[in-house]
């Protein structure tokens, strides 16, 4: 009833589910927190700052839920808000403060070494952990744009066009960053063959 009324008011029946979903912050956090935390953590390489930005992102999203038009998925919308917050932090002293005083800098390869143990044999798990750690290590060395675009495409499974809109960059520039990131990953994995 409520959601149907909301969709009539705005005129986009498709967004009925999304709008009602955004109204419950507990549900929102439960459903999207893990993926958002993964994206922000690997984008920044700073666990504490990522945690803070994820929390701020949910607060901001909840406060601005009426402005969500349903033109993209909720996950993409959250990623976009988080990305804007990361950029804001980068531009401010707050980010520099966190960067310089962060006690728990993220060991990105350690994080990447966590894999579901029940998935396969110990030998295969070890191989998977090594591969994941290699990718994580390469990402650490990439520029912010290359890393973020790589994560958006392969981790968040966003389309190139979506990424282009989310980070306000041309499609060709997005493709160039993605190409450089993939090249670096491919070369690094090749080294250990």
């Amino acid at each position, binding site marked *: 009833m409520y959601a149907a009324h909301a969709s009539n008011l705005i005129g986009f029946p498709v967004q009925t589910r999304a709008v009602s979903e955004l109204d419950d912050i507990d549900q929102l956090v439960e459903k999207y927190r893990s993926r958002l935390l993964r994206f922000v953590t690997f984008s920044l390489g700073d666990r504490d700052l990522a945690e803070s930005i994820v929390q701020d992102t949910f607060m901001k999203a909840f406060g601005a839920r009426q402005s969500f038009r349903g033109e993209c998925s909720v996950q993409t919308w959250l990623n976009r808000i988080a990305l804007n917050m990361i950029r804001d932090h980068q531009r401010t002293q707050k980010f520099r403060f966190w960067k310089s005083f962060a006690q728990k800098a993220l060991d990105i390869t350690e994080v990447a070494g966590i894999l579901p143990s029940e998935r396969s044999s110990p030998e295969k798990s070890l191989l998977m952990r090594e591969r994941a750690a290699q990718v994580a290590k390469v990402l650490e060395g990439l520029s912010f744009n290359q890393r973020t675009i790589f994560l958006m495409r392969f981790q968040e499974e966003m389309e190139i066009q979506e990424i282009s809109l989310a980070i306000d960059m041309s499609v060709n520039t997005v493709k160039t960053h993605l190409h450089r990131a993939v090249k670096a990953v491919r070369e690094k*994995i090749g080294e250990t063959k």
Partner: protein
Amino acid sequence: MTNPHLTEEQFTEALAGDCDFDVSRHLQTCPQCQWEIERVQAAISDFTAAGLEWAEQQAPASIPVCSRFVPHWQAVSSWTAAALVAAAVLFGVHQERPSQMAAANAIPAVERSESAADVADDNRLLAAIDTEIRWQAQSPVSIERSDKESRSQSPHKLAN
């Protein structure tokens, strides 16, 4: 294709699932390029799974209750009301003190009883303000909960 294998750009496009017909056809007929794509895909897939596993293991930080449920204007109005009451009380005491001191010796018994009635009135007023402030502080949660409850019982929600 003059090049026997995919170029770097074509490889990225294929990996991203954004390749044209020629690249797709080449991948179907070239085991080496296919193997290379699968190798990089596997590494990215492992990295993605590991990242998600790690993120799921992190305990969610609690979101402050007052920020979650109290609308901004109500939070502000509660604080404003409290500040106004405090200022009014302080200002009133400060203003009345000289006159009270000057007339302290000449206050008849009747006036003392009237001031007691005033005190009772003041107490009632403060109690009313207190109730009002408490209502403002509590209502967003109760509204939120009742809203949630009503939504959870709505036909639309049940239909989903």
